[in-house]
């Protein structure tokens, strides 16, 4: 850590890195106490059934077992969910997927807990399982939620743009393709877990791995019938989340357990297999694209049809669909068309938030469609994109006027002059024997924040300690992406304090202030803006205090310096510690609120789509380039080079920026080539890392991450969201590179060696 004030735009090493390399960073998994209780969950194990009886008579008799809890022990609504509360904490009478929680076992040891879970017998009446979203839409499909208004549709909607379908006839060229993307598992290395205790005053304290402490608190209280002020959530370091901890995992189950543990602390920690079965995934999607243009390559018409498999519960499925619809036209001016989408209930594993959040899926659709169109009209794919790239003031596909920085043109121009692009023909010609090479690109737009209705706000808090140092209360979780480092950097630079003197308080519903979820590429934008205000107020207040003490009129003549406040004209100083001790503790605390600006455009009259986030106001952009080599014997795809040019605003910390871009791209690479979370008739068959393959160091190419550094006037020090944009690029860029190499557009992901071999065989037949 640095003993000098941080600068914005320069790398400040992560303060958490020291603790993490020493094994001293405490995650919620790391809480143990002599005599603590283990709590574990009995899962339904079948995709769809009526639950008639839970027989735990044998389980409860096992040595060490303290209690078995069922829905009968739940005092509140027994429902959880972010928008639509359709998920039971513990199943009452209807099982809707294999991972449904049916009962909880509390036990003295992990082993006896596991044994007791196995000993619980479920008496069920099986129901036909709906596991194909297309069949789920049919009139004769079994209903996942009998009382749902629109049969098996969680959320559906349509938007007509310009002349709608009538514009199709005005196109010179039309391409049509249907793409399918697979279910992706977050596979954070720290599985869902937590630690909870009920004190003798009836207060619950829960330490857990989550992206959403304040929302969790409300959900727990409502589901269990508790008073909100009796629930406290503390979030220490989080071992990865990527959207999978955006909402309840263990929290409610753990809280309920603690209420039956006679004051003993309770630990719940899902195994890898349980995590895979019970946690949310990236929505599998079916995307039908019809894209039309004039002969000169001007895009004229787009018709998109999106079907997403949301599993049995909303989680954030409706919001994912709305974001997918909003981004379905990519970063292009397309004046006419239709987007029609639906998020469908099934008895598959639950789909929900995952870095990229619907944009990943549709980006793979529009970007593959663009390359098909480029070939059809005989145009260079980069030129086609540049010709149609959105500029500030344009309307995007759903009709939102772009009023914030719009740097997709700069991103594409950067690729256009990049040696990997300009020398691609030479590189491709140099493929070895029995190898084929291709180069593909993708252009991406990704909105950040919550959309027009759900308030996207943060409350920052800074305290001057009695020691004359500054303590920053972070209300937004840092699950590894490094936003807490950005927080240190912001406060350190505004107050001119050594970075290693800034103390961070990680999210805690009793100490930090509500600041929304760690999601939607919003953390540093929203919390950072609040924090800048707080730091400026703090500086002003301290300068005023110093002016009063020195009997000077003008606080403007003062500035904070490391550990002092200096009167600039005379050079006299007062140590911050002295000032701190002259201030009341309440005076030493500053809070500031920021609410993100929202889109005023009424792009749709459908309130439900707007509630689910359409449209956004602020967008990040990226252009990506993949150089791939195919092995003609095995079909193996190797990404030899990968470059991204991103418009994420002004970069606050180059190292954190690179981490986000590289990490996002590697997850996108996993989606493109390896990861496939398989459920057969609702039963999960990929239960571990030997069947669910995430990229290793051998698979991940070095990634060149170029920042455009365009200043966003509404952003904290000109920055925009970095967290998700990079995840969306690899699937379309790699598919387009394979298209370039083989002339075949692969429409399903992951792109397996088998599918590549099939494409290569087609060529030899031709």
């Amino acid at each position: 850590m640095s003993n000098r004030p941080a600068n914005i735009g320069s790398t400040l090493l992560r303060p958490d890195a020291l603790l993490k390399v020493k094994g001293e960073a405490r995650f919620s998994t790391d809480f143990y106490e002599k005599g603590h209780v283990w709590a574990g969950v009995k899962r339904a194990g079948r995709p769809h059934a009526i639950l008639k009886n839970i027989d735990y008579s044998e389980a409860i008799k096992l040595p060490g077992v303290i209690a078995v809890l069922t829905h009968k022990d739940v005092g509140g609504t027994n429902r959880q969910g972010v928008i639509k509360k359709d998920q039971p904490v513990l199943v009452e009478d209807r099982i809707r997927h294999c991972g449904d929680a049916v009962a909880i076992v509390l036990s003295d040891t992990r082993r006896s807990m596991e044994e007791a879970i196995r000993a619980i017998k479920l008496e069920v009446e099986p129901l036909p399982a709906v596991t194909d979203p297309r069949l789920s839409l049919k009139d004769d499909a079994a209903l996942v939620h009998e009382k749902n208004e629109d049969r098996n549709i969680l959320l559906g909607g349509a938007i007509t743009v310009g002349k709608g379908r009538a514009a199709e006839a005005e196109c010179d060229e039309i391409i049509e393709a249907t793409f399918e993307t697979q279910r992706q598992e977050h596979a954070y290395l720290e599985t869902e877990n937590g630690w909870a205790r009920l004190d003798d005053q009836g207060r619950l304290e829960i330490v857990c791995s989550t992206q959403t402490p304040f929302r969790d608190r409300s959900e727990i209280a409502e589901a269990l019938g508790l008073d909100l002020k009796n629930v406290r959530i503390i979030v220490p370091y989080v071992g990865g989340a990527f959207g999978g901890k955006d909402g309840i995992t263990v929290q409610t189950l753990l809280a309920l357990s603690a209420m039956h543990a006679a004051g003993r602390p309770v630990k719940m920690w899902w195994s890898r297999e349980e995590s895979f079965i019970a946690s949310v995934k990236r929505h599998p999607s079916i995307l039908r694209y019809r894209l039309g243009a004039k002969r000169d390559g001007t895009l004229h018409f787009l018709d998109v049809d999106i079907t997403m498999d949301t599993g049995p519960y909303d989680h954030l499925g409706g919001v994912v669909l709305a974001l997918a619809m909003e981004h379905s036209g990519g970063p292009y001016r397309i004046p006419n068309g239709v987007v029609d989408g639906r998020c469908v209930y099934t008895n598959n594993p639950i789909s929900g938030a995952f870095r990229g959040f619907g944009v990943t899926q549709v980006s793979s659709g529009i970007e593959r469609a663009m390359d098909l169109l480029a070939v059809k009209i005989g145009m260079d794919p980069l030129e086609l994109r540049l010709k149609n790239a959105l500029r500030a003031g344009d309307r995007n596909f759903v009709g939102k006027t772009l009023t914030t920085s719009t740097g997709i043109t700069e991103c594409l121009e950067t690729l256009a002059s990049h040696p990997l692009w300009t020398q691609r023909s030479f590189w491709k010609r140099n493929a070895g024997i029995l190898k084929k090479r291709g180069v593909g690109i993708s252009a991406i737009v990704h909105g950040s924040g919550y959309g027009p209705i759900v308030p996207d706000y943060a409350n920052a808090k800074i305290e001057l300690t009695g020691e004359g140092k500054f303590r920053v209360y972070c209300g937004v979780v840092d699950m590894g992406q490094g936003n807490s480092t950005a927080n240190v950097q912001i406060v350190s630079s505004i107050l001119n304090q050594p970075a290693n003197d800034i103390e961070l308080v990680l999210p805690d519903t009793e100490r930090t202030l509500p600041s929304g979820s760690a999601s939607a590429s919003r953390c540093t934008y929203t919390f950072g803006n609040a924090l800048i205000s707080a730091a400026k107020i703090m500086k002003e207040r301290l300068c005023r205090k110093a002016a009063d003490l020195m009997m000077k009129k003008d606080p403007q003549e003062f500035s904070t310096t490391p550990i002092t406040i200096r009167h600039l004209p005379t050079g006299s100083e007062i140590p911050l510690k002295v000032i701190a001790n002259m201030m009341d503790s309440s005076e030493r605390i500053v809070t500031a609120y920021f609410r993100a600006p929202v889109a005023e455009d009424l792009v749709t009259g459908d309130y439900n789509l707007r509630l689910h986030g359409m449209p956004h106001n602020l967008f990040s952009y990226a252009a990506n380039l993949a150089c791939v080599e195919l092995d003609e014997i095995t079909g193996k795809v190797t990404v030899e080079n990968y470059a991204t040019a991103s418009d994420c605003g002004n970069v606050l910390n180059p190292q954190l920026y690179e981490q986000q871009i590289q990490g996002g791209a590697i997850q996108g690479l996993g989606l493109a080539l390896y990861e496939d979370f398989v459920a057969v008739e609702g039963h999960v068959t990929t239960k571990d890392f030997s069947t669910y393959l995430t990229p290793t160091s051998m698979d991940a190419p070095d990634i060149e991450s170029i920042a455009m550094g365009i200043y966003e006037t509404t952003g904290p020090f000109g920055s925009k969201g970095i967290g998700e944009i990079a995840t969306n690029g690899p699937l379309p860029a790699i598919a387009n590179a394979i298209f370039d190499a083989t002339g075949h557009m692969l429409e399903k992901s992951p792109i397996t060696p088998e599918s590549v071999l099939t494409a290569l065989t087609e060529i030899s037949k031709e």
Partner: protein
Amino acid sequence: MIVSFELNGKDVHVETSSDRRAVDLLREDLGLAGTKESCGNGDCGACSILVDDKARLSCLTLAAQLQGRKVVTIEGVCGEDGRLHPVQKAFIESGALQCGYCTPGMVIAVIDLLNSNPSPSRNEIREAISGNLCRCGAYQKILDAVEEVVKDSKKEAS
């Protein structure tokens, strides 16, 4: 049974069942929670520890297998004076971590590599850490970090 071994430079004698997993013994019984568990299956490398200077998976190691061995966990990687190991220092400086959950196992894997091959190529580093999953995708910066260590040790040697 009583298992006796050297742990981070100190002799320990601990009463445990012979089939207790080393990862549980370390984390729960001995309070060394720096070693992480992620898959419990030998697939991910997060729980790596050094046993007689070689990286081993503590989720697949039983307590009895530690008998008489020299065990180093992430807590024992720093020098006696608390000084960071060069690998730890390089991880911090290169930004070779994000969430940090794979980091203890990754640091152990790299130390194992450098024990047997003090100047590995970038590809050799890739291979050596390929059994350690990093879901944040920090591989590139991990490779950079290890290359820094190698560069620094060459500088020192010359």
